[in-house]
């Protein structure tokens, strides 16, 4: 049973619009890149949520807002129940020790002029969590935990390989004993044989310290391996979120279905044969001027009138499964009429029905105990 307190992080209506300015002296705001537009999700304490999607879908921006490297345009980020979305940088300082980040690029995220010891020690010096004289011992302990030689604390980042540098970044993120780690593509820059070392280390970190993870990656197999729950993003919105078995085996959103069908499958290929791919036509539309209604409709084979008129809400359809599609259904079993029309107060073509109002509070960060059953399909 999910209760309020079991989630370390709850995100509601989180939105990031970056202004686009014209050239010239005045630099008027001519539009907004709607990088993230109203996402809702939660991360259980000590659990992990995977965030997948293609480049430009807003997954990294979401991670950066959660770590408060960006100030959201709108929405709430509730960390242990307190909204941190609008805190000033002074107010954020005590919070930083609880939310840390692991970056993709192990070369760019370490200062080349600092020794590894200094890199890992800096957070403890700033936050004064460890007495000055114990810092070195603590650094060596951390280096040892992430699988590096503790005697190497006075070496520089360039003396380490990519995998070792990523371990240094992990040691740094653990220095303050955070409760939530935002890992943005933590293994995609590494060689395959090294990726597994780092994934196993992150799993050990999670077990050992009971840290919640927001795990952002584009590799569907890696996310499936690491995260019991996965959210799929498209053009700034979460289109489907659910436990990994449901999401990967019975996805209900046409975009998730296409994404999963496109992932290479070694096991399937080993016995000869390849999954039928669902082709997506065209490119992702511009986030400056996203399509009306459902953002995926321009590339969706199911799109009908309603999809252009009303945006589908992220509806909970099973104990741990939500989907945002008017025609949500398993592949090849498309419902004949929109499953969402009754909740939205519109008819099947998406036109408002007089006297009917959209049902309030359709979307929430958490999963509820009651949900909407999809009509039986056949």
């Amino acid at each position: 049973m999910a209760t309020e307190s079991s989630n370390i992080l709850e995100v509601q209506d989180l939105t990031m619009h970056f202004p686009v300015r014209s050239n010239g002296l005045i630099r008027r705001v001519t539009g907004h890149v709607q990088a993230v537009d109203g996402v809702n999700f939660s991360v259980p304490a000590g659990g992990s949520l995977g965030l997948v999607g293609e480049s430009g879908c807003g997954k990294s921006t979401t991670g950066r807002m959660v770590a408060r490297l960006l100030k959201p345009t709108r929405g709430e980020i509730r960390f242990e129940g307190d909204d941190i979305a609008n805190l000033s940088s002074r107010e954020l300082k005590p919070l930083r020790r609880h939310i840390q980040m692991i970056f993709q690029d192990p070369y760019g995220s370490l200062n080349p002029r600092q020794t590894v010891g200094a890199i890992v020690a800096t957070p403890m010096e700033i936050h004064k969590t460890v007495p000055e004289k114990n810092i070195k011992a603590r650094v060596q302990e951390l280096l040892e935990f992430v699988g590096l030689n503790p005697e190497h604390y006075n070496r520089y980042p360039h003396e380490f390989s990519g995998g070792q540098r990523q371990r240094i970044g992990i040691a740094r993120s653990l220095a303050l004993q955070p409760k939530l780690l935002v890992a943005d593509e933590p293994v995609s820059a590494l060689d395959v044989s090294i990726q597994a070392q780092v994934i196993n280390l992150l799993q050990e970190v999670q077990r050992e310290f009971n840290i919640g993870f927001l795990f952002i990656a584009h590799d569907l197999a890696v996310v499936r391996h690491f995260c019991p729950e996965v959210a799929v993003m498209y053009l700034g919105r979460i289109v489907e979120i659910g436990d990994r078995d449901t999401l990967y085996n019975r996805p209900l959103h046409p975009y998730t279905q296409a994404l999963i069908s496109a992932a290479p499958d070694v096991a399937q290929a080993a016995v000869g044969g390849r999954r039928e791919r669902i082709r997506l036509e065209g490119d992702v539309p511009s986030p400056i001027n996203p399509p009306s209604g459902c953002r995926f409709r321009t590339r969706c084979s199911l799109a009908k009138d309603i999809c252009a008129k009303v945006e589908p809400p992220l509806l909970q359809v099973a104990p741990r499964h939500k989907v945002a599609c008017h025609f949500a259904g398993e592949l090849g079993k498309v419902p004949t009429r929109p499953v969402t029309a009754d909740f939205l107060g519109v008819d099947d073509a998406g036109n408002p029905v007089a006297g009917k109002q959209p049902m309030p509070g359709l979307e929430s960060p958490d999963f509820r105990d009651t949900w909407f059953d999809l009509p039986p399909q056949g």
Partner: protein
Amino acid sequence: MTMTPHEDRVVGEQLLTVKDLRVHFKTHDGMVKAVDGLSYDVARGQTLGIVGESGSGKSVSSLAILGLHRNTNATVTGEITLGGVELLTLTDEEMRRKRGRDVAMIFQDPLSALHPYYTVGAQIAEAYRIHNDVSKSAAKKRAVEMLGLVGIPQPDRRVDDYPHQFSGGMRQRAMIGMALVNDPGLIIADEPTTALDVTVQAQILDLLQKLQKEFNSAIIMITHDLGVVAEMADEVLVMYGGKAVENGPTNELLVHPQMPYTWGLLSSVPDITSDPNLPLRPIPGNPPSLLSPPSGCAFHPRCTFAARVPDNLCSTTVPALEQIEGKTFHLSRCHLRDPEAVYHNEVLAEGPAGASAIAAQVAGVLPNAPRHLDAEGGES
């Protein structure tokens, strides 16, 4: 002389044969043996996947086929025969005429491979005019035709676009169009989809396969992604430390891998169907230094089975790339006795996620697999 691979493989005409290729770079710190005695071949209409980590020599060996190490500090020895012509002894001018006409390359990053100052059409037309005596307008027509062939919408308008006006997937399509403009027998694709998103990757791989059928070209697909190799390649060559360590038909190599490094690769990546409760089994340690490679088998410092081989053979003697007994075509470079039994009884018994998913697929039991449905909803 190293053995000639594939002697007993029944195949069509081998378009490309590489024999005992060595590419060595002289550096201030010593000789870097990037490729050290590599032999393989590819037939027309076939795809060879070359897999390996950074520094394994997979890209360097393919650049040698294109003659891109000429006039550098590299020493290239061995034999590279393309369509019966020995490439290493050609003059620069003769090689220039081959390049683009008989062998073409698709690079990983299409944005830096395309010139930002010229239109996409002009660059494709140039590649065509260099090898064909045609007018500018005929070359442009050919460029439009190629863009249409690789699936660029409105090719007659997009031909005048600059690379920055194309999306990542379209740029890679344009690169493929440029590579195919002279209908080369051999295409080398170096990580062609690594920079692309997974849905675009799927489009590009489908396109390459479709065009390969149409043009009957041979493709060498260089990648670190086993998934891409598994779906694209007829045969796989696994490289480690500048040498081939295993080579065989794709299905055979994935189901009956012989060399501990290949086991490591299969065990360290999760598959999209693997049981998430199973662990990943990483390969310990780091890839070898090419400046001072380990003695004996380059993989032995990371190999958990080296201790099994008597007399420290692994650290003293480089194993030969040998045909596996009882197989028509499957080569492996390893001292370990009866590797197939070791793999099935010990490696798979530990239940590494990726390798177990393959074994489960072979056995036909796949509790957690996504169901494979075609668009009509039938199980495929």
